[in-house]
């Protein structure tokens, strides 16, 4: 259940008196620590600038982070990235001629979205 007002007050009182918020931050004995809770969803669609058709297999990666994914057969992508005000996203064709050949593109994403979700559609030029 969630705490009622009296319980919240007791919680607040105990942590204030003990001068610590450590009480709230715990993880189970045999579990992992909780995350920082700051990853956000970055999603969109990659299409051909020439035809408008979706492009499968484009690698979507974030500079300075390990995060990446590939576009699906409908050109869509979806990955979680660390919350940052701005980050650089790179779209690169890594599957040779399999789905056509496209020039890479990168772009700076400015995150002022309060919903923790960023939508970006991109079109790539053919080589």
């Amino acid at each position, binding site marked *: *259940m*969630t*705490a009622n007002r009296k*319980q919240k007050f*007791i*919680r607040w009182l*105990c*942590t204030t*008196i*003990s001068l*610590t918020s*450590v*009480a709230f931050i*715990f*993880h*189970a*004995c*045999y*579990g*992992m*620590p*909780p*995350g*920082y*809770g*700051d*990853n956000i*969803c970055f999603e969109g669609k990659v299409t051909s600038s020439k035809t408008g058709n979706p492009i499968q297999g484009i690698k979507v990666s974030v500079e*300075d*982070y*390990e*995060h*990446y*994914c590939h576009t699906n057969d409908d050109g869509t992508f*979806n*990955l*979680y*990235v*660390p919350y940052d005000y701005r980050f650089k996203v790179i779209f690169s064709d890594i599957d040779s001629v399999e789905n056509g050949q496209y020039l890479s593109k990168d772009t700076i994403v400015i995150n002022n979205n309060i919903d923790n979700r960023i939508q970006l559609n991109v079109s790539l030029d053919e080589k």
Partner: protein
Amino acid sequence: MITESNSTLVWMKSKFSQFIHNRFRANEIKIHELSYLFWECTWRCNLKCRHCGSDCVSDSKVKDMPFDDFLNAILPLKKIYKPNSITVAITGGEPLLRPDLVECGKTLRKNGFHWGIVTNGYAYNADIHARLLSAGMGSLTLSLDGFEENHNWLRANNNSFKNAVGALELITSSKRLNYDVVTCVNSKNFSELEELKKFLISKNVKAWRLFTIAPIGRAANNLDMQLNNQQTQELMRFITQSRLEDNMNITFSCEAYVGEYEKKVRDSHFFCRAGINIASVLIDGSISACPNIDRSFIQGNIYNDNFVDIWENKFDVMRDRIWTKIGICAKCKDYKNCNGGAMHLWNSNRDGIMTCVNERIKQNL
């Protein structure tokens, strides 16, 4: 200079802190807000660790739970909790053996839950690392139980140390992943702790958690797993001293109350939150608290019961632990602080705690 009045002040501060914590604990029990949820996603494992509490094996006949079954059981939680207030800990067996792990995690994150995994690192590589992060994994715990000889001995695999160190290097290179390294301290790796600490610092590890090995599962009858009383106290001293060095956040696990070492080996007082803030969905759908708790404490099953109902209305055995005032706990003066210790140290007989770390420390004083 430590004067008598200073030491009295320290003692009073310690007693007051414990008093406030006990009030806090009582309040938290009444609230029993779910904030941590284990999912025992598989019993398969790529190792055969000598101390495994779940007795996991590579060819487990117990089938993995379909992810949708777990998801459908926990989605009703969103009606009463903000999903981002709940961390799902994917455990096993070895979670990396699930081919759909990345998709499971991404779906959890899409539904607002935070999630992470507990792993032995054996199958952890750059590709899975990137894919897990991209699926929204926010945290991870990696097991490392000594240097090569002792780690491989405990994990019963000659490549496990090499692979675990490879995993460690990937994990520590991540800028925004919360993680820690856990070590199960036993009679074999005990003498390596100082060197292991230096090794972990050299690898930029930020957090290290040390356990003793509970006499459950495969460790139940293996004396090599257990520390003697002197080693137990030396472990407490090692952690206390290491925390003063401030190179790495080193803690003793929440597995036991440690008396005079409370707040010296951890940031907060001992508080077993099993059934109070922690629940689990086990491999067969059973609903309990931490997966290593004896299965006699199971409260329900997702295939027959509503998970939220079970969480809200059952778990009395873990929220009112007066039944633990038996055996060595019956007349223990620390009982009000310890409250019967950790749930995983009680078996189906409920005739006494399996082992008391505080008692072992006191016996060595």
